[in-house]
């Protein structure tokens, strides 16, 4: 039985632009983003009865899209089981980027205070810098980071989806945060003080 709230094709199409921006944020590839949005709209129109009306239509569509994006992530992770050695440094090489081995593993440059960083959030430019910084992450690091921080998945869910160990997951998140932190400090907070 079709509920009165069942969304129609024009209803769901209104959210296309938003869904596209959401997909692009995660996939960083225009044609892939287009594909998953297309699949999402199709899935929604084919089973409009699944929309319960308990959440907004946009939230429902986002939920479908999220699953499609995770499907893409899973495929990508399978195609490159461990990131190609050239694309990702060893633990030691990665540490050398941030720490000074001669000096009992101290920071190359000490993290300095960011003052009241919350104030940056309303600034459009902050998020542009944030995007530029987060887009520098290599594939697997980016996938784990997006699932954890943007989508709010728990690490055991991420491990399961991407078939990686918890330790591997923690290392990926560590690298993502180290790089993002350093980039934000250099390109935003150092100048903002």
């Amino acid at each position: 039985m079709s509920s009165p709230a069942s969304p129609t094709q024009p209803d769901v199409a209104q959210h296309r632009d938003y869904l596209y921006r959401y997909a692009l944020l995660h996939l960083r590839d225009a044609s892939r983003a287009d594909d998953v949005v297309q699949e999402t709209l199709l899935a929604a129109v084919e089973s409009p009865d699944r929309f319960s009306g308990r959440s907004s239509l946009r939230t429902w569509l986002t939920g479908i899209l999220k699953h499609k994006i995770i499907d893409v992530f899973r495929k990508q992770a399978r195609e490159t089981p461990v990131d190609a050695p050239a694309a990702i440094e060893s633990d030691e090489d990665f540490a050398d980027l941030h720490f000074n081995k001669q000096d009992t593993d101290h920071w190359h440059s000490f993290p300095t205070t960011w003052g009241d960083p919350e104030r940056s959030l309303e600034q459009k430019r902050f998020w542009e810098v944030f995007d530029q910084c987060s887009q520098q992450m290599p594939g697997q690091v980016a996938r784990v980071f997006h699932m954890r921080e943007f989508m709010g998945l728990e690490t055991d869910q991420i491990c399961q989806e991407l078939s990686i160990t918890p330790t591997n997951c923690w290392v990926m998140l560590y690298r993502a945060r180290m790089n993002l932190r350093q980039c934000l400090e250099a390109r935003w907070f150092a100048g903002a003080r």
Partner: protein
Amino acid sequence: MLTCRQVSHLVSEAEDRRLGLLERWRLRVHLKVCEGCRNFQDHIRFMRRVTHRHPILRDEDKE
């Protein structure tokens, strides 16, 4: 005493798993005396708090 490098790992992992008693204790001892790592912890927690407030994600509430 843990090195800053070890501390950076623990600070990050504390966001994803429950640290052991000994780990927490050693972390606390280091943070007490190391301003750089305290700042680092603030930054990691800030990034974790705010990433999901990205403008594109906030648009989910706009209709």
